[in-house]
């Protein structure tokens, strides 16, 4: 399409024709993953309006409704509870929608925290260099030798020991965000440090230094915008892992309490009924978790390839 021949297209049309969206429209995997993710996220975010029941409304629960099977499974089923109910008579579909929201919230906040710490450390280490750099990167190296889930587990355990029980249950969500975020910062820090080292030698940084800007001003408003790209791609790929971390911790029983169930908590609760034949209580939250993480991973893979010009 030549600029001169056709009338100047609007901003939307130009965006639609950009390389980035072109590769998106022509990747069926990315399209399907995005649609699935959109559906899951919408169901979670708007769970207050979309969910058929309120799983936290104790007045609406009736033990007579407990362990209803999903609608395609047996005659006892009830269309009011499409995916069946758990031991308390809570609607499973609504529980999953509310639980997905908590899982997403913890995952996004944890990655946000890890990004903040990682970018700060990476910028400072890369820009300052010298002893500060070696000390910070040495810390990152030591932490990278351990699996993230182990670090999150130990951090969570120590906080659990320090805080009083009642208070702890109230702030557990933030404790999880802290534990998972702390376990995942080194990767971001290393990436940002690498790009900062390259940017530091560029002329615009030199110019900024010559006109007398402070180091922090140069780091935040000049270098940061130029190193943000790669680290955001890594953040996408890490979001899936952070959601899995949260689910794993909650499954192990050191995560969110049953009053505030995430997908991992729902799976743990349902696990107790696996042997008595009520498989749906654990399997449906499990499938939701797997679909959520799989679509995030597929989108992250596509994003990485689409933003890497060498692969075109």
């Amino acid at each position: 399409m030549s600029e001169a021949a056709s009338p100047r297209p609007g901003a939307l049309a130009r965006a639609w024709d950009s390389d980035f969206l072109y590769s998106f429209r022509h990747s069926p995997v990315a399209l399907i993953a995005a649609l699935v993710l959109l559906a899951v996220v919408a169901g979670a975010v708007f769970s207050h309006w979309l969910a058929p029941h309120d799983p936290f409304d104790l007045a609406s629960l009736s033990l007579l409704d407990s362990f209803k099977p999903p609608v395609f499974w047996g005659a006892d089923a009830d269309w009011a509870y499409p995916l069946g109910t758990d031991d308390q008579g809570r609607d499973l579909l609504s529980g999953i929608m509310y639980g997905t929201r908590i899982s997403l919230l913890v995952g996004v906040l944890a990655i946000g925290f890890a990004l903040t710490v990682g970018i700060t450390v990476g910028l400072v280490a890369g820009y300052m260099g010298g002893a500060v750099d070696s000390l910070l990167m040495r810390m990152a190296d030591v932490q990278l030798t351990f699996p993230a889930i182990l670090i999150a587990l130990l951090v969570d355990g120590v906080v659990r020991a320090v805080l009083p029980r009642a208070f702890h249950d109230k702030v557990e969500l933030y404790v999880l965000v802290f534990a998972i975020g702390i376990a995942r910062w080194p990767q971001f820090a290393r990436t940002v440090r690498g790009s900062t080292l390259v940017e530091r030698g560029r002329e615009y940084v030199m110019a900024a230094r010559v006109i007398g800007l402070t180091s922090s001003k140069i780091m935040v408003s000049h270098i940061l915008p130029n190193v943000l790209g790669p680290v955001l791609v890594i953040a996408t790929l890490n979001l899936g892992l952070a959601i899995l971390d949260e689910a794993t911790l909650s499954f192990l029983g050191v995560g969110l309490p049953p009053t505030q169930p995430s997908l991992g908590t729902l799976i743990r609760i349902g696990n107790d009924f696996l042997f008595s034949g009520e498989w749906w209580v654990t399997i449906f939250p499990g499938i939701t978790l797997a679909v959520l993480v799989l679509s995030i991973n597929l989108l992250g893979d596509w994003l990485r390839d689409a933003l890497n010009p060498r692969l075109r």
Partner: protein
Amino acid sequence: MFAFIISRLLQAIPVLLVVGFISYAMFAFVGDPVSIMLGQDFTEAQRVQLVHQLGLDQPFFVQYAHYMWATLHGEFGISYRLARPVSDLILERLPATIELALTAAVLALLIGVPMGVYTGIRRNGVLARAFMIFSLVGVSLPTFLIGILLILVFAVVLGWLPSFGRGDVVHFSHWSTGFLTISGLRSLVLPAITLGMFQMTLIMRLVRSEMMEVLRSDYVKFARARGLSERVINFGHALKNTLVPVITIVGLQIGGLLGFSIVTETVFQWPGMGLLLVQSIGVADIPVMSAYLMLIALVFVGINLIVDLLYYAVDPRLRVDRRALTGAR
């Protein structure tokens, strides 16, 4: 070579000292061992005596030195929860975890390498595509969900295999093994598959991409030109050259296996160290937690050291860019 070993050993010491410091700080500042050990009734004199006995009236760094010294001798204190020496608890459960991790690693290698070779050679075959989809699902499913699905299918619906515990074990002084009894072996199947699944898909993808790389290289083309059979080329030439990165990744992943065994052991109620740790965290049993941290640090430092030495022995070129090879999860 000798200088290299020494320098690696010297680098490992600060890491261990730092981890030791963290685990000591946990020990010292979290919880109050004196009030836990004294119980309800005590006099001031008893309290002072106990504080003196435990060495808690000494300066912080003296206590830290004592702690490290005791750790070096395998003394980790007494579990708050079970009121038994932590070292005994860990010794009891170590064999279960080691047997599980080893079986999982062997399983991952025995299944992952052939699958990787096959998908590397028959890139577009139906079976190869099925393997690739399977590996994607394997990476996206969390470990505990794989375990639950296996239990549902093989223990609840089909009833073929036990779903929890270690079965009958045979004792050899300090070591207990489940390898020698039928029920022990049957109990091992599901947990080992669960734990090995991630490693298996990782190895499969690695072998596949290495195979594809090597099959494009000049010496494989020459081997074809010489008229060697496909079999000799694929296994004699190509596979051999893909094994260097595979060995190192597997080595580094043994640490990851120990980490993820926490989850597997909880799903299957496997009486190993991971289950001990999870139970201890639930009730804030600090001595067990700090001992676990120290031990796992020792294991990881040891594994990294061995892998570094392997690099040195196998291929000096690889030493330069180790990080790029390390799969992170």
